[in-house]
């Protein structure tokens, strides 16, 4: 770290100014160039992006309305927090970040339309956005055609890699495999029952999980069931679970369906203290709706929990709550969304330019030491190296960290042997 950042940490005035805004990641990551004379706009922006001598514009593209708003609001909030912190710490290449927010309205073509608007009309330097795979699939051709840069926060199914996208969430193998290994070892689990929502992410995740269970863990999948998005009747599958008595219930049910699923599970007398259940789709955000008492005891496998005990997270959580209210909770995706603006800033400074081609080329190897989840680094395939963690849901809606991988797990969007 430079002298300047040390001074910043020691100076009481600076400290006071920045404390409310999670100064720790901001300060630890602050490179010297932020305070230096800003480079000329013509030098750092050769492709006509919305960059002036004092400002740079980025887009935020999530659903603020519609069924996905409940999930995506956290991402919007995290991105705004990150932008505010970056601005407080001097901006990017001496320029303040200004954002234009667009509403994808939980409607995939609207996402594509708005992405196009941001790139063509507003000439944004980057887009922080999308949540569901469907919205990303709709936006992907647009960012590729107009050469934009998308920072995508959600854990997703993999099988994708683009010059124009940085995936700040985990891809499926990264998220699932370590969790399955852990539960197989810890619980001696041999039989698994898969339940998912019926779309591409659960189906692909379960395909990977099945191959892993059968080929690596030498276990058995005793059931695999899918329900439409928004489904609220899980009684038949719960009866099947009671009949087959699997060692582990593995679920990737998403959104509002979770509320019905866990309540009916509890009503059917399945006690999650005794029956192991591993979910890859329930974060603190979902527990808010499910109720801690209905899901306590379940294991979740992802990369971030609000309860993580590290200095970055201890600064991040209060800053988030200060900006958005005491009652807000922070789930895995919210944290990944927070990484987007920071990774973009670091990449721009590494590249010394806002040009998308230079950012895409400079991205591999960019490290962010201030991430609430801990150290992360961008891989050549534009995904993040990150740890996989298993948490156990508690009554108060938080997760207790049970296990984490010793090292960062390599992202592998096109896993051999799992296709």
């Amino acid at each position: 770290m430079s002298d300047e950042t040390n001074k910043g940490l020691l100076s009481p005035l600076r400290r006071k100014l920045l404390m409310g805004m999670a100064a720790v990641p901001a300060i630890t990551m602050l490179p010297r160039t932020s305070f230096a004379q800003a480079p000329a706009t013509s030098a750092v922006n050769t492709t006509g992006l919305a960059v002036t001598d004092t400002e740079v514009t980025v887009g935020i593209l999530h659903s603020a309305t519609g069924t996905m708003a409940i999930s995506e609001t956290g991402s919007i909030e995290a991105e705004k927090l990150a932008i505010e912190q970056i601005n407080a710490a001097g901006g990017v290449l001496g320029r303040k970040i200004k954002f234009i927010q667009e509403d994808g309205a939980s409607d995939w073509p609207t996402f594509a339309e708005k992405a196009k608007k941001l790139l063509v009309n507003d000439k944004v330097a980057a887009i922080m956005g999308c949540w569901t795979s469907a919205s990303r699939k709709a936006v992907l051709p647009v960012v590729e055609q107009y050469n934009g840069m998308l920072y995508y926060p959600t854990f997703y199914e993999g099988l994708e890699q683009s010059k124009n996208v940085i995936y700040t969430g985990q891809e499926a193998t990264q998220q699932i495999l370590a969790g399955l290994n852990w539960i197989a070892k810890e619980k001696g689990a041999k039989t698994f029952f898969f339940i998912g929502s019926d779309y591409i992410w659960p189906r692909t995740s379960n395909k990977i999980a099945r191959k892993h269970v059968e080929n690596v863990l030498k276990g058995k999948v005793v059931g695999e069931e899918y329900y439409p998005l928004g489904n609220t009747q899980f009684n038949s599958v719960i009866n099947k679970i009671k009949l087959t008595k699997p060692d582990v219930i593995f679920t990737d049910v998403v959104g509002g369906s979770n509320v019905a699923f866990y309540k009916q599970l509890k009503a059917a007398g399945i006690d999650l203290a005794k029956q192991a259940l591993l979910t890859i789709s329930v974060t603190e955000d979902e527990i808010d709706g499910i109720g801690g008492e209905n899901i306590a005891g379940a294991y979740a496998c992802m990369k971030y929990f609000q309860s993580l005990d590290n200095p970055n997270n201890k600064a991040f959580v209060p800053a988030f709550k200060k900006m958005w209210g005491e009652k807000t909770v922070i789930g895995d995706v919210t944290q990944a969304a927070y990484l987007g603006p920071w990774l973009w800033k670091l990449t721009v400074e590494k590249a010394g330019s806002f040009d998308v081609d230079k950012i895409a080329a400079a991205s591999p190897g960019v490290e962010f030491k201030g991430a609430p989840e801990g150290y992360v680094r961008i891989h050549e395939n534009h995904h993040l190296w990150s740890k996989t963690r298993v948490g156990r849901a508690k009554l108060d809606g938080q997760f207790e960290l049970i296990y984490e991988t010793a090292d960062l797990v390599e992202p592998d969007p096109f896993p051999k042997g799992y296709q």
Partner: protein
Amino acid sequence: MTDNRFFNRSELIGILVLAVFLVLVLPLTLDVFRLNLVAKYLTYAFVALGLVICWGYGGILSLGQGVFFGLGGYCMAMFLKLEASSVENTKIQSTPGIPDFMDWNQITALPLFWKPFHSLTLTIAAIILVPGIFALIIGTAMFKRRVGGTYFAIITQAVAAILTILIVGQQGYTGGINGMTDLRTLKGWDIRPDHAKIVLYFFEVGCLFVCIMIAQFVRHSKLGRILVAMREKEDRVRFSGYSVANFKIFAFCIAAVFAAIGGAMFALNVGFMSPSFVGIVPSIEMVIYTAVGGRLSILGAIYGTLLVNFAKTSLSETFPELWLFGLGGLFIAVVLAFPNGLAGIWGDYVQPRIDRLIASRKPKPEGWTDSSVADSAPAE
């Protein structure tokens, strides 16, 4: 009243004004991005046009037009997707040469019902025939049994729900909830760059005018009169010896085919098709476009579609978190204050003033409604 011409004078002028607006004013004043948005809005105008015939004139309220929009759109999208999934484009997959979502769902060969969509001719035929025949089947099943009114509306909703579930559930064959994305070329011609968008826009406007002519023809023919008579007093038409069911089926099929053409245009212009256009909500939205424009006015429906969609885009750009309330307020205001929509406003307030002006001087009149019996509100 009894003339067999397609239009009276004020209708002709109305159509010319629309033509000038769409062909000259919009392309000259908007950039390509906005023009492409207009092209997207106009795809719904096809649906609204069909609803004017089916709902405004025939009195058959269909809350399932998204089904036909979707069928047309999916037919087009399947053709474009197959072209985009050439072997060299998809060599990263375990089975190259099939659409990417099939590969993700472990399908290893192109399903039989996809095969015809290698041919553009068959695709165009399918865009017209698949929804047409589907509407014929639904229409025959319903109208021959004299199911009508609210029951018919509910059944069309059910069909929309069923088709959505089918598409989402069979994601290996349909792309599921993601839909078909990343459509690239039409017979080797890239549909994505700006100049292609402009060409597609004019092509679409051309198709829209053909449909307007067909709708005008239906409206002014004896058929149109029978549809109105049926709407007003179905039994009398039946007692006069007409087969009410057949006329209703016809109106429903025409609306279905118009919607399907709109869907196909959508896939071409937007490069995308997904089940979110098939379900109940988009179907109701399409009825709203017609209601805002005026369900008795062919041109009103087109302006209504443009207005609502324009409001949707600009409100959501300006107020990303509140825009739905604004849009809802707009609907309620229009429906409460002006039950006959934009066309009603024009007919009640603007047209009379112009007429008065004409009476005093002799300027150019313009308008899109006439004051014939057919255009008056249904006597319910």
